[in-house]
């Protein structure tokens, strides 16, 4: 993968831009030492990073073209907009209770640098190369969701490394919607840190569909005492999408839920690696992830649940269901449970199947066309994942998007 280093790290050393200089240098050093993951790196074995090697990333950095308006949404919401990886702070519309500030070195979790192995290389790359770091502070219970919109130009051909931290104060509650899309063949290598204060509640909706744009995103949610994190992911496919989603249940009473659907077609390749870390006892998690793969698409789901020694009275449930819609599609799914504590409950299930002929006939025998029957069966398979989401405009929007993707 040295070719990838040359592509993504064109300069010999990180620029020293003041406060983050030493962190950047350290990150770059670790990256140069370990390199990028390759086919033998277990957690990255399904990611054809060779596709990135074949691309040419412009040295120019994101263009200075005028930032278009953020996409619109059928619900009232605050919006911050990353276009070509860059945030225009002036164009932000923040709900009451949400403040945007620049990131400080103390906001950055440097533990990622301690892990020796190439699996974290893109997080190191982000640290070495991020252009702007932002932090959203949330207090109280804003009455509107906040959308983080990510877009890029059709001719977007650079590698960008956006970095954002969202910190919920104690007792705060927010619905955060990441809406991401992109056409151009650049790379968005993003890091999102979510910090949930005591008894806070974050509903984190991710809705993404990329064409040629490669997305590599690491999201880490640190969940404090009695706080609740719920993620709802809808991925409509992308040429190369990799999401690492880590939920750390750090204090008793912390709860995490991850519900996801990926609907893939064409040559999409989407890889979700989730990890739920039960660091203490008295914590709960549940996860339900479904992939529908058509054409020559490839879907990967690796769901890790880790209950550390002493984290007794932890409870975890995981289910992954997968639907292969074409002979050439591939799905690799793996629940991965690592349990070192006593007195816990942890269940998991994984299925891979095809559309049920009996069900298809049944629907047609009632008058639906074959196309309608297939769409309804796919929708039924996928939409159930969002049943646990609170009813409202955001959920309606998400299920409408799902219908579009099917």
């Amino acid at each position: 993968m040295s070719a990838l280093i040359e592509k993504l790290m064109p300069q010999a050393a990180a620029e020293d831009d003041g406060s983050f200089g030493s962190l950047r240098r350290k990150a770059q050093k670790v990256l140069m030492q370990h390199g990028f993951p390759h086919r033998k790196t277990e957690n990255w074995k399904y990611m054809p990073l060779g596709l990135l090697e074949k691309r040419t990333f412009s040295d120019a950095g994101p263009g200075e073209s005028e930032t278009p308006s953020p996409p619109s949404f059928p619900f009232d919401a605050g919006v911050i907009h990353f276009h070509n990886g860059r945030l225009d702070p002036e164009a932000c519309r923040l709900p009451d209770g949400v403040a945007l500030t620049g990131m400080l070195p103390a906001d950055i979790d440097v533990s990622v640098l301690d892990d020796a192995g190439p699996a974290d290389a893109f997080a190191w790359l982000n640290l070495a190369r991020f252009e702007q770091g932002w932090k959203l502070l949330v207090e109280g219970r804003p009455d509107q969701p906040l959308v983080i919109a990510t877009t890029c130009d059709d001719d977007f051909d650079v590698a960008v490394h956006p970095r954002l931290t969202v910190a919920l104060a104690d007792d705060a509650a927010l619905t955060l919607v990441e809406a991401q899309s992109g056409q151009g063949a650049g790379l968005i290598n993003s890091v999102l840190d979510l910090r949930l204060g005591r008894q806070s509640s974050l509903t984190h909706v991710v809705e993404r569909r990329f064409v040629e744009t490669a997305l590599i995103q690491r999201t880490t949610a640190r969940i404090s005492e009695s706080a609740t994190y719920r993620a709802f992911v809808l991925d409509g496919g992308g040429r190369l999408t990799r999401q690492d989603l880590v939920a750390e249940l750090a204090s008793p009473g912390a709860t995490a839920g991850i519900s996801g659907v990926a609907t893939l077609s064409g040559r999409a390749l989407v890889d979700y690696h989730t990890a739920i870390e039960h660091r203490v006892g008295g914590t709960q998690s549940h996860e339900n992830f479904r992939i529908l793969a058509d054409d020559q698409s490839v879907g990967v789901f690796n769901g890790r649940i880790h209950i550390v020694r002493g984290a007794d009275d932890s409870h975890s449930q995981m289910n992954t269901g997968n639907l292969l819609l074409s002979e050439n599609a591939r799905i690799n799914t793996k629940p991965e449970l690592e349990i070192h504590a006593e007195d816990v409950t942890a269940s998991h299930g994984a299925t891979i199947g095809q559309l049920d002929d009996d069900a298809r006939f049944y629907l047609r025998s009632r008058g639906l066309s074959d196309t309608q029957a297939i769409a309804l069966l796919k929708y039924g398979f996928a939409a159930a994942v969002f049943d646990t989401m609170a009813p409202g405009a955001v959920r309606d929007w998400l299920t409408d998007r799902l219908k579009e993707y099917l």
Partner: protein
Amino acid sequence: MLNIKNLHVAVGGEEIIKGLDLEVGPGELHAIMGPNGSGKSTLGYALAGRDGYEVTDGSVDFAGQDLLELEVEQRAAAGLFLALQYPVEIPGVNNAYFLRAALNAQRKARGEEEVDSMAFLKMVREQLKQLKMDEALLKRAVNEGFSGGEKKRNEIVQLAVLQPKLAILDETDSGLDIDALKLVAEGVNRLRDENRSFIVITHYQRLLEYLVPDRVHVLSDGRIAESGDRSLAKRLEREGYAFLDTAEA
């Protein structure tokens, strides 16, 4: 209404229906009985157009149309309804949504106006009430978690909403207790009129005490071996199917 001539049907290369003739007039209810493996369910599936049920010979005229030329959903829109012996569970698909989509797909295919959700709900609630089914079932996924009896009653709700010209009930009585059986029979009887026809496939004479047939046919080895009035069903109940061997011998 339905005119089947010399029908041959093969499943997986094996001929199951071997030259069946049957004529069902408007408003008539015909019962088809017969031992296991005689081809009763195959007849239902073949008429509904299920893949894998290959018609190798014969003709089926349905209300002036060549039924065998039509796709499954076209047969439904033309007025054919098959109540399944084992109704399928469709996880994640809301019962009310499905039924309205089906009704409107049929209406659209016939060039009729679609039914709005208010009118639809009124119609379906009435049927649920008559079949003593909980309205909450409308919001649940199709047949998912339904008891065996609820699934069968749900087929009758669909039948009542879709108002077909010809309904084929494939062992709709199996697995029903006597109260549920009466409800299902009442549901069917409410739908009987001079234009709507029924083919009732059953193993037992019990159902025919509530659904009085115009004709009873005994299917054996892919053919109709005997036809008669309702007294034939009573004879079968008494004597079993042994007389078929005698008749053929």
